[in-house]
């Protein structure tokens, strides 16, 4: 079963229940966040709007952070979540650069003794293992966060758009973005207005991995080339020595 969350931005009223529930459920210390709700202003008088969007890890199908992490501290599980092993992480912060959604955050405020870590949503890994649901979904009083299986959530999103085609933007953010994500968004306003940028449908790591795949063949060709040059240049010297004699 693929875990999934459906976020309906039009239903969010910025009560921060999800943020607080996440912090207490996962023991996120003061100053760090794994999810946060931001207000976004749009439109002009008289149609001014403020929408709120919950930002957190999208749990991509092909996560760039997992490709980036040099120590496999970030990894993809079979349920679809991207989880984090805080015993492996060396704090290089390459994941912060790789993530197209700018999700991972570093505990800047912690001293070395307090062991700073990367903070990102892990789909409440320890709660789900214990048979409980996601803290944020259970805390939301407005039904803006719905938890379920990925296919069911896609169906749900489609039927909501179908039922209110004039209200919703006809796009499920996360269905195709960067190769598909486990978090889906519905919105009544253009997604760009709530900082859900157009990141393309191609997985981010593709370009890097194509280049990476060329590395060993490239270095093999180089080695043969160097061996050839070395042989020729030394042979030439030998021949010129022979002539002198």
């Amino acid at each position: 079963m693929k875990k999934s969350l459906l976020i309906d931005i039009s239903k969010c009223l910025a009560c921060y229940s999800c943020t607080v529930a996440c912090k207490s459920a996962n023991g996120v210390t003061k100053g760090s966040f794994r999810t946060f709700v931001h207000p976004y202003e749009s439109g002009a008088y008289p149609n001014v709007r403020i929408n709120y969007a919950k930002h957190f890890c999208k749990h991509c199908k092909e996560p760039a952070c997992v490709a980036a992490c040099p120590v496999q501290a970030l990894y993809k599980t079979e349920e679809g979540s991207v989880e984090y092993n805080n015993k492996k992480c060396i704090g290089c912060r390459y994941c912060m650069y790789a993530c197209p959604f700018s999700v991972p955050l570093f505990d800047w405020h912690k001293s070395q003794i307090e062991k700073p870590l990367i903070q990102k949503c892990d789909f409440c890994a320890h709660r789900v293992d214990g048979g409980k649901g996601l803290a944020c979904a259970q805390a939301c009083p407005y039904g803006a966060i719905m938890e379920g299986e990925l296919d069911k959530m896609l169906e749900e999103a489609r039927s909501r758009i179908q039922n209110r085609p004039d209200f919703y933007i006809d796009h499920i953010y996360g269905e195709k973005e960067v190769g598909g994500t486990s978090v889906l968004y519905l919105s009544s306003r253009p997604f760009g207005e709530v900082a859900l940028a157009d990141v393309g449908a191609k997985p981010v790591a593709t370009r890097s991995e194509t280049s990476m795949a060329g590395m060993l063949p490239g270095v093999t060709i180089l080695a043969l080339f160097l061996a050839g040059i070395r042989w020729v240049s030394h042979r030439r010297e030998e021949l010129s020595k022979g002539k002198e004699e």
Partner: protein
Amino acid sequence: MVAKSEPLFSGIRGFLLALTLVGLVVAVIRLIAGLGATTNLNSGYPWGIWVFFDLFLIPFSAGAFTISAVVHIFNQKQYKPLLRPVVLAGLLGYSLTLWFLLLDLGRPDLFYNVFIYLNPRSFMFEVAWCLSLYTGVLVLEFLPAYAEKYNRKGLQRGLTTFGIVILSAGILLSTMHQSSLGGLFLLMPGRIHPLWSSDLLALFFLVSSVAGGLSMIILISAWAFRAFKHHLDYRMFSGIARASVWVLGFYFIMKIVDLMGRHTFGRVFEGSIQSVLFLIEMTIGILLPLIMFASQGVRESKSGLIWAAIFVSFGLALNRTNIAFYGFDPIRVATYSPYWMEWIATLGGVAGAILIFYLIARYFPILLVPEAEEFAEARGASFTAVAITLLAIGIILEGTNPLWSGYGVWIFVAGLSFLIASLEIGAGKKMMKGLQNAKNNN
């Protein structure tokens, strides 16, 4: 080795020592108090001055692998006297790089995880491993000077036997990580200004590092020989200068073709800060030194060579800063300029490296050793066997899980190094002799 009459830490060296010590104190504070308290790094700019310095230091230290290739692969023996000072500078450059990386890590206490949990899909894995392995290789490349000074015959024999293997490994690891450094930025396509955000970043980093390496050979030799008041015949650099023309020319053409291929050529003249910086990089950093190195007058003049080399290094440093900072769109709205502690730790590190170079050059046979590094030949057959074994192990591991394939990469590279060394110089001659013998016997 030089006259020891001069006091050790007087004048400029005294200042360097003070700076080094202050830098060390600040570094220790950083390693206890954490990144937030001692740096201006933030969630918009998670990497700062230490990573930027590493991005320059690594291509600046490319002199080491370039000179090894020039002397031992291209067999240009006239450059032998420059081998040791430039390799030593490379060793210190890489040690400094590792030091800055350690300071920059969020969890320096867990740095060794890089060698336990491997992710061969990550350019960061490749950079971290290559840097560590290559620093080790540079230590081995420096060891002949140590063996000579303390007359360690056994070590000397081992080094002459495996010298060419060590050197080949150094060249391969260098080309790998110089390009991987550019590869790092491939994972952030939307964040880098289109003028630099090319699919060929890895190749650009490699080619420009060779240009930088050639220039660093000139600069480091000039500085080291001057510091110890030795005479250096600048006419010897004309070959290096000519090679630079080719490398810079190739780099320049590649950059232009890449821009046109990506339909971004028009943005060169868009008038933004980035486009101006790009133009400076292309003209002062590439075209100007290219023209200078191409002119015979400059090639024969000391100051001309040095200035051209300085322009290349400047262009290189600007290129790396442009990609990592000026042309970089922060991850979230933020600004970054280094905190004073970041500056002091950085300058302290650089001062320390210069000082250590001076001390080693003073007490070890580094300068004026023209006969250094003769390698034993006639190991062809046994080296070939080792090469094939290592390559086979590497390929087999490649097919297993990510962890083992990560180790496989480095075993494969070791195999390639033995392969380069196994192509013996006398091989052709011996083969002819063997054929002749066979004929005679018949």
